[in-house]
């Protein structure tokens, strides 16, 4: 009963209702889009650094994380890798060998740097490094050769087709030296990698006299949010080894992401706050404008409580209307951003690097419950409550004074 009166009231003042509703709806919609956008931005960073670089879980010899000694190896690597691949939660696995070597080109120049031994297919799936080639081709188990970083290529004046000399201290104390045809040149924007080279696992094992051991296993699961739950299974597949999730491997990344999350959250709160404030003002204004009308109501005998209920009902309906409108706009806006993505750069085409990882600066908004519900309930709450105080005030008005208001 009250609701229908309230509803009719709203429509009797169509313009006022529409103005208020549209303002609230726009605020709601934009806050939803904002939430989706910031989530998408965080996801972009996280995917770049975690998925594509650190991986979800890293497995090493127990001492390796602190010693970084090439002697601290993961023995029997094939078995462990096979076990891991067999786990249903695991999406991609790759093993790596790491070492430090002297590199030589044609002349006498020598350069020092890191080298990695990887599984060509696995590593490409893991980090997409094969897409980072600026010339030549990626590694292939069947083809002897190495790929080198762009900086190394420059300092040794080498290119695809040339020959790379790698000299290192093998693990049995002897000198490990080999010449590899340069298959390709890559650029990752990670200085350490770009000053080094990448070999196949077998080549690295042979060079270092490592037998069947490797240094590192990187695991990426299907769902980054449930890594915690998958850890026991992964640990079981890699007995006697240090199994660490990415947040333990790289606390700096956790900090960075957390920091970004804090700043984006900070901005979102500010915007939400301003939106709420403006809504309250709008509602205040609307009630004040109706002082005369409410005075008439009081004069004809409507009880204060009824006036309050009516105004509350109006607020609720208005809020509901705005919410519906706002949700529709917000959800469709977010959905559109989610699929087509928003490009954040100024258009010079070069890729960005965050923490040494290159990323393509396109943000795909994310629709999550939080992104929708938080603005919805916050603004909805404000919309309903915002009408309360003036409603109470209105109910206490002396009708005569009120009617005389303009």
């Amino acid at each position: 009963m009250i609701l229908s009166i309230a509803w009719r009231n709203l429509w009797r003042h169509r313009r006022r209702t529409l103005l208020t509703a549209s303002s609230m709806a726009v605020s709601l919609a934009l806050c939803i889009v904002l939430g989706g956008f910031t989530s998408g931005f965080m996801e972009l960073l996280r995917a770049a650094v975690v998925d594509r670089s650190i991986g979800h879980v890293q497995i090493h010899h127990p001492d390796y994380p602190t010693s970084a000694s090439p002697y601290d190896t993961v023995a029997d690597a094939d078995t462990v890798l096979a076990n891991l691949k067999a786990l249903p939660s695991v999406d991609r696995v790759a093993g790596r060998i790491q070492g430090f070597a002297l590199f030589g080109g044609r002349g006498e120049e020598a350069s020092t740097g890191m080298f990695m031994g990887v599984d060509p297919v696995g590593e490409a799936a893991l980090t997409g490094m094969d897409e980072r080639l600026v010339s030549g081709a990626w590694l292939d188990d069947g083809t002897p050769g190495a790929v080198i970083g762009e900086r190394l290529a420059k300092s040794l004046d080498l290119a695809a087709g040339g020959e790379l000399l790698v000299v290192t201290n093998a693990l049995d104390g002897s000198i490990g030296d080999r010449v590899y045809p340069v298959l390709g040149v890559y650029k990752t924007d990670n200085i350490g990698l770009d000053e080094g080279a990448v070999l196949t696992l077998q080549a690295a094992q042979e060079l270092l006299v490592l037998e069947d051991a490797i240094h590192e296993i990187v695991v990426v699961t299907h769902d980054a949010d449930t890594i915690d739950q998958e850890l026991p299974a992964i640990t079981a597949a890699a007995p006697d080894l240090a199994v660490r999730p990415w947040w333990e491997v790289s606390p700096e990344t956790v900090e960075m992401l957390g920091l970004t999350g804090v700043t984006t959250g900070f901005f979102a709160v500010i915007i939400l706050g301003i939106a709420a404030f403006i809504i309250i003002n709008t509602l205040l204004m609307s009630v004040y404008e109706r002082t005369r009308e409410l005075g008439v109501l009081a004069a004809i005998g409507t009880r204060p409580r009824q006036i309050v209920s009516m105004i509350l009902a109006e607020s609720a309906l208005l809020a509901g209307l705005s919410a519906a409108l706002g949700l529709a706009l917000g959800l469709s806006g977010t959905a559109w951003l989610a699929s087509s993505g928003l490009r954040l750069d100024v258009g010079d085409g070069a890729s960005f690097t965050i923490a040494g990882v290159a990323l393509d600066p396109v943000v795909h908004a994310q629709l999550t419950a939080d992104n929708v519900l938080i603005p919805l309930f916050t603004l909805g709450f404000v919309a309903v409550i915002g009408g309360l105080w003036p409603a109470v005030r209105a109910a206490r008005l002396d009708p005569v004074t009120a009617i005389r208001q303009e």
Partner: protein
Amino acid sequence: MLVSMALRNLLRRPVQSLIACAAIAAGLTSTIWMTNFQDGNWIGLLDDSMRAAAGHVVVQPKGYQDSQDAELLLEDSGAIADQLRALEPDGLVLRRAFVQGLVASSTNTVGIAVNAVEPELEREVSELPAKLVEGAWLEDKKQIVIGRELARKLEVGIKDKVVLTISSGGQIVGLPFRVAGIFASGSSRLDSFFAVAPLSKVQGLMPGRNDPATQVALQLPSYEAPKDLVDRVRAAVGDGPEVLTWREVIAEAVKAAELDKGFAAVIWAILAIVVSVGVTNLLLMSLFQRTRELGVMLAIGMRPVDVGKLLLAEGAILGVVGAIAGFALGTLLTIPMAKYGVDLAVMQSSAPVSNVAIDTVMKSHFMWGKSLIWTAWFMSLAVLASLWPAVRAGRLEPVEALRAT
């Protein structure tokens, strides 16, 4: 006349006027504050990068920017520095050498990057002196300032001796240096691989070269350089070295900042729309509410045009008052953010090009230009919002209007 009438009208409806002003003020406060914080932080970041890493204009050996080859060096750097000083007496001219080398203690040897600088001059521009946790900044002696992680790896403390070795022109030369200071920059990368030593002493490690340096940087007090500066410097130093602007040198840091900037632009756009729409709707609603009152004015003989002007005047007054309040409040709230900022742990991107210790504090910076633009925007918003009702008022039938509620 019009203005005093408008003012009276507004004061006759104090609460509504206040609400309208408050809305305008809040909108402006938030946009100004946000702009100062976001843009200001970015400007601050660039400023830091610029000051610490390069300068407005930088003279380097030809090809150095692309190759980063530590073997490329300018000779007679002192003469080049003098030339730049002659060009811009107000500016600061700094010489730096960037070399790769090894630092060895009795327990360990670590490969590092060394910034060889002029201690007194560098002190004015570098972030590191402020980040020393032990010891003091360099004097022009065989001293070295290293990061905390590096000190730990080498197991050395203040006054301990380490040997700095660099390979230059095929020769390997090492000299002992004493640790003068240890810094904690907040970036674990810098703290582990970065050291600073006096240029004159590091030159001693490059015996085949005459007064070598990697870079001679010219910095001016403001961060925007006069446009012809690069040309004048080029004319002064000739064709041998390359002359670059600071933007070219810290391309890496600029790119990272632009990602943030892109993000910030979206946030800010959202804020702008929310507040603009909100304020406009609020004003419109209020104005449309006054149809009856306007009818009265027309009925007593005011010309529609004047009614319209009256509304515009009211809008203008609200706009001005609200905007002034908003500007004042926004600026006031910026002050603590500009002074103290928000201290965050550092977000390190790989910025080896600039060897920069990125400031850990996000600070606001007073963007006066933009603040004024926003103030003008909100003022005009109030007037613009009044436009539609003002026009409509001109077309009102007094009788109809009087009957409105």
